[in-house]
């Protein structure tokens, strides 16, 4: 029966190829959307791995998550170093990593933190951060860059970089008076960390507390046109004052109200006046709610402690409408592909009545002819799924560099996962079920129906 099906399909190969392509495009779209969705979700979830709580100025938990973990948006007015010490000194707290934000390097977030960041932050199910080259920063003028930044700009250990104020890609306020030397490059993680420039808290504040210097930017020629334009003007003392004043009103809480006097050094530990957030690891995770309550009820300043996973769930619930709409569209396209196949099979039925009658005249039972139609549909759908999967892989391969650069999302290019198998099986079953409609029509045809035509 399989041989007969293949020969019959080959006899109608043009229409069959068109149908296979139609199903393939549907399958590629459905699988692509699903992969994109799961890659974005796992990338987000992996970015917050290892962190039990994030403490930030009081605000919306999704906004805090986006700002502190993904470097998107802001966290509000900042947390005082006193509050940081109060949180860090709690017995249930195993470790803390303070973070300051607000600067960018050629559009990528700059995070001020401590070297503890590299010990405690995890990715992809608990893997520690590894250095592809170099080491963690140990001086205020050293930086560590994520894998994506290093790859995009061709940075290596020893390269000097300059950061700019603000989170946007186009910088109007470049801190070229305080360049950083890259001390280490992180191995790829597939998370937001790949897109971070990490500097010490001292280095972060140094940018805004440093004395005026003649701006020097060794990379001016390589910068984007907008950035290059910003580099063209030297910062003056007035510029700096104006710039720091701006920080007081925006997300750059790490330097809120920062002046030379506000950047203090206590022994070997730099203590800024304010930071943006604190990553927390607990001794015992069962105390998470009591710590959260302590932070919420902290009287010296309004703070929030968010559970990254809970905030992620809220984020997914916000994005679920768009996600569902995307899935619905992809499913509609898949349905259109299958309907196209049913139309192809049904349209050919009249032309093939004689073919089926001949098969029955030589002994094929109605059930055999029924199974011939279903077999053909199975082959067409399976071929469509196979080609669609290859199309999706090719599209993923080609789109990955753009997706990583724009969204930090990398689509897996490899064998199908469980989710892919489920989707492909569902499409195959839908195709087979849909083919029973024309098959039933053929089943009901009488043998005498088709035996009176000439070839």
């Amino acid at each position, binding site marked *: 029966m399989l041989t007969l099906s293949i020969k019959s399909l080959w006899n109608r190969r043009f229409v069959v190829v068109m149908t296979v392509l139609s199903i393939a495009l549907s399958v590629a779209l459905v699988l692509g959307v699903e992969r994109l969705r799961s890659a974005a979700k796992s990338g987000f979830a992996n970015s917050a791995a290892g962190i039990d709580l994030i403490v930030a100025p009081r605000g919306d938990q999704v906004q805090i998550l986006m700002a502190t973990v993904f470097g998107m948006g802001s966290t509000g007015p900042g947390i005082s170093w006193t509050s940081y010490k109060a949180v860090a000194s709690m017995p249930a707290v195993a470790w803390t990593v303070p973070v300051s934000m607000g600067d960018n390097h050629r559009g990528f977030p700059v995070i001020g933190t401590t070297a503890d960041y590299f010990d405690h932050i995890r990715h992809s199910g608990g893997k520690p951060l590894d250095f592809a080259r170099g080491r963690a920063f140990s001086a205020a003028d050293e930086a560590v860059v994520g894998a994506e930044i290093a790859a995009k700009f061709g940075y290596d250990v020893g390269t000097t970089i300059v950061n700019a104020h603000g989170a946007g890609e186009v910088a109007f306020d470049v801190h070229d008076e305080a360049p950083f030397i890259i001390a280490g490059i992180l191995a790829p993680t597939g998370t937001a960390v790949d897109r971070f420039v990490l500097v010490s808290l001292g280095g972060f504040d140094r940018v805004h507390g440093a004395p005026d210097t003649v701006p020097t930017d060794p990379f001016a020629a390589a910068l984007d046109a907008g950035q290059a334009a910003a580099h063209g003007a030297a910062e003056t003392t007035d510029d700096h004052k104006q710039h720091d004043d701006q920080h007081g009103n925006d997300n750059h809480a790490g330097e809120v109200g920062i002046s030379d006097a506000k950047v203090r050094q206590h022994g070997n530990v730099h203590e800024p006046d304010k930071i943006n957030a604190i990553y927390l690891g607990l001794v015992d995770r069962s105390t998470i709610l009591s710590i959260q309550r302590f932070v919420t009820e902290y009287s010296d300043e309004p703070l929030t402690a968010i559970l990254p996973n809970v905030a992620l769930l809220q984020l997914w619930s916000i994005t679920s409408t768009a996600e569902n709409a995307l899935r619905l569209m992809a499913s509609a396209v898949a349905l259109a592909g299958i309907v196209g196949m049913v139309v192809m099979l049904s349209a050919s039925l009249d032309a093939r009545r004689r073919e089926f009658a001949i*098969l029955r005249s*030589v*002994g*094929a039972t109605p059930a055999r002819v029924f199974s011939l139609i279903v077999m053909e549909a199975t082959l067409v759908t399976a071929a469509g799924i196979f080609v669609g999967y290859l199309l999706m892989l090719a599209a993923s391969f080609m789109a990955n560099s753009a997706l990583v650069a724009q969204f930090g999302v990398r689509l897996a290019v490899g064998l199908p996962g469980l989710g892919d198998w489920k989707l492909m099986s569902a499409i195959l079953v839908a195709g087979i079920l849909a083919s029973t409609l024309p098959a039933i029509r053929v089943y009901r045809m009488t043998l005498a129906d088709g035996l009176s035509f000439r070839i």
Partner: protein
Amino acid sequence: MDKALVNITSLVQKWPDSRVPTLDISELRVGHGERLFLRGPSGSGKSSLLSAIAGVIEIPPRTVEVAGSDIGSLRGAERDRFRADHIGFIFQMFNLVPWLSALENVLLPCRFSSRRRQRAGADPALTATRLLRELGLGDPALISAAAMTMSIGQQQRVAAARALIGAPELILADEPTSALDEEARSSFIDLLVKECTSGGAALLFVSHDRSLEDHFDRVLEMPELNRAGRRC
């Protein structure tokens, strides 16, 4: 009913939308290995009779028995299986699957009938090739050519080989020579009769052409056999 291969008794058959019967035959017997020629003009019910014997059309129970089976009592799929096992049918229009090769068309009954497959020998493809060769289609290029690319005469031979493969007990031939000239017609009948004889099959051949009568053991006039045909 006796031991005849085909035994027809009181067969009255009407099409669903007709008041007048197409077939009204009180009795017809075809013996094992017999070569019977049924002659009659168009509309005398020849094709309908063959369709009734082959179970292509619905007929009342206990009216047509072939190889001991009551065709009218068999359900659709059973009739299909019975036909594949016991009957080779050469249609007037040949009814080949156009996109299959000559060889694949001949082998079709062996696909659906294990009985025919067993009786076609250890290698049914060899048997099919031999049949085609004996019927004048020995060229390998022709054997592997798609049926739709063949001439009428070639299609007719393929249809005959398909009916003969697996040595069914009964060959029904519905005016398969109508599109051929006299010389080709006679040559084809000779070949067909010879193959039926060597396979031990009975041959029921219907045609309006009197010139073919000499090739058969017995000749029946359809208008005399079919009272419905006489009324027409």
